[in-house]
């Protein structure tokens, strides 16, 4: 394993494609490990144990620290993305599932699904800065591009809570459809997308007024409506395309970011939940939990290019920055 890793940078340099290869990190919820892929060759570089029930995953803006929610260990484990050696752990509060890193790289806002809390942790001092009480079963975490508003979705309260990133106080609550799983801003902060897994919709919220301006619904021919369960949401940095992972319908919806109308559905693997772009936004990776693979979508052509087997029940994915 070690020498495969040592070879990987060399391979990337030799590759014909001038695009920089990035490492893709996939948490395998059941496998208790992270699979590392090369974004260019899609070669599996290795699989590394990361603690119990890894789910949410993020990487620091400078690419030096990889954060993994080890849900059953009740902490966040921090790894060196190059060597995959554990550097240290961060306190997370109980049962961390998803988190979001402040755009500056610090702090980390963690949803504690079992305790109706959002925990704020300083990644440098490793201190808990705040515990914010939210609704029942907090899950999705988003942050505005200017870093001033943190969004948490609570799955049983069915709300998106707007939290002031400085004061840690809830400043607004927006009722959305059943079981909101994920919150994602567009890059100029003019829209907030919140997916509702059981409701089967994505609410488009105007962050200024905290009002729902549109509800995106989905319909796939030949797929029963109850199988269409929106979870992960990603928006291209120009705001032109929104991708929504539709869970057990095994599809990713492509949405026009200007009109918020669905353009297409892309068939990926089974139970697709989370997604991550490469830094150049050429590709989007999806985790397919029930088929143990990730799919790679070509963002420009809106086509699924390839799927790669990873570990058991892939859950989260992040791509290292350039």
């Amino acid at each position, binding site marked *: 394993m070690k020498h495969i890793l040592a070879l990987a940078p060399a391979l990337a340099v030799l590759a014909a494609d001038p695009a920089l290869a990035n490492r893709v990190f996939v948490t395998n919820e059941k496998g208790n490990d992270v699979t590392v892929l090369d974004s260019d060759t899609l070669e599996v570089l290795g699989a590394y144990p990361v603690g119990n029930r890894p789910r949410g995953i993020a990487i620091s803006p400078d690419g030096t620290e990889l954060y993994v929610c080890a849900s059953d260990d009740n902490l966040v484990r921090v790894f060196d993305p190059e060597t995959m050696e554990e550097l240290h752990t961060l306190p997370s509060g109980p*049962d961390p599932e998803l988190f979001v890193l402040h755009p500056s790289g610090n702090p980390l806002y963690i949803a504690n*699904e*079992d305790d*109706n809390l959002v925990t704020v942790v300083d990644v440098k001092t490793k201190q808990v800065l705040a515990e914010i*009480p*939210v*609704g*029942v*079963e907090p899950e999705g975490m988003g942050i505005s591009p200017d870093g001033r508003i943190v969004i948490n979705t609570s*799955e*049983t*309260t*069915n*709300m998106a*809570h*707007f939290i002031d990133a400085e004061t840690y*106080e*809830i*400043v*607004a*609550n927006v*009722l959305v459809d*059943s*079981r909101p799983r994920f919150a994602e801003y567009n890059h100029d902060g003019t829209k907030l997308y919140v997916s509702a897994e*059981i*409701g*089967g919709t994505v609410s488009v919220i105007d962050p200024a007024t*905290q009002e729902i301006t549109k509800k995106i619904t989905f319909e796939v021919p030949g797929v*029963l*409506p*109850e*199988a269409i*369960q929106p979870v992960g949401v990603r928006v291209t940095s120009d705001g032109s395309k929104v991708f929504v992972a539709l869970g*057990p319908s095994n599809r990713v919806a492509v949405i026009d970011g200007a009109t918020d109308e669905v353009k297409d559905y892309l068939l990926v693997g089974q139970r697709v939940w989370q997604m991550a772009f490469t830094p150049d936004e050429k590709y989007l990776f999806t985790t397919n939990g029930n088929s143990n693979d990730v799919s790679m979508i070509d963002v420009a052509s809106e086509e699924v290019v390839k799927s790669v087997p990873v570990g058991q029940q892939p859950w989260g994915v992040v791509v290292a920055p350039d």
Partner: protein
Amino acid sequence: MFKGIMGLLAGAWALAEPAAGQTQPETQQIRAAVLRVDVQGLPPISRLDLPPEDLGFAGARLAIDDNDTTGRFMGQDFEAVEVTATPGTALAELDRIIADGIQFVVVLADDATTLALADQAGDRAMLLNARARGDRLRGADCRFNTIHVAPSHAMLADALAQFLMWKNWPDWLLVPGSHPEDQALAAAYRRAAAKFGATIVEERVYEDTGGARSTDSGYVQVQAQMPVFTQRAPDHDVLIAADESDVFAPYLPYLTWDPRPVAGSAGLVPRSWHPAMEAWGATQYQNRFERMANRPIREEDYQTWLALRIVGEAATRTGSADPAELRDFILSDQFDVAGFKGQKLTVRDWDHQVRQPILLTTGPVTTSVSPQDQYLHQTSALDTLGLDRPETECSFREAP
């Protein structure tokens, strides 16, 4: 601890107010009752099944907590009055609840009492049936004022049948008990066999000859009786016990004459809920329940929780506390609720049965969840379970 969090949430909500430029509306009260009708009878075969004192009520308390958490943000406050009764006092207790101004009553009772309560309530209250499973209650005896949160015998039998057909075990030895409710359950298995193409190779009734449930010599006679009872059966893949009365089914696994698995009322059991269910966010639900009740959850608790969540969800979505408005919304095609089963739960308009996946459980784990993927349906895969629109014997006499 919880109180403290609530206080903070309420504070947060107040903070949000100036931004929205509204004045705080008066808190709406949404009231319900849980009426549990207890029947004195023999203890269950296994002490593990002894009913806890707070059966059903614990589920109600969790539902009120969940409803109130959302309610603090919405200006709504929920309450569920807990009432126990006997079959003799049930109607009077219902009248008392209605006289108190409550129009949503979760009922935990047997089929006959549930029907009597529905007729007693008339158009004065909406009942949410959280225990009775009889198909007649949803068919010939259906009532407009009753929403069936508990799954029906037909749904449970169909859920098991789909799995057994997927497993390629189509030949069944059906063993019903001798009580009317056992026969009703057996009828559901007969129907399921015809619906999914299974064959019932023989029906062999297990007579309830009475007597005590536990004796000092325990297993000795049972170990001798069960193999003899099941011998000389035609070839079969699986034995299905229809023992709604809890007389014999738990004794069957490992004691059948032929080495065959047992399903139905023992072995692989179809259920609305199971305390070890962990998919679809259920882990957090189980943890919340156990922290509150200090015991594992039962089906009656889940069904009561779901009944009150249905009322709560309607109140959240309509922003109303008016019982008639809530009822109309629950019965409309706009309504759905999440129940930790991986998809939205809705109400069938033809018999007011809540559509829901059914768990197939073996002792400590969930073995499968039906409907099985292979069974398709033109409107909802959940309608492959139970009596579908064209089959229903229900016709609501009047829709008030």
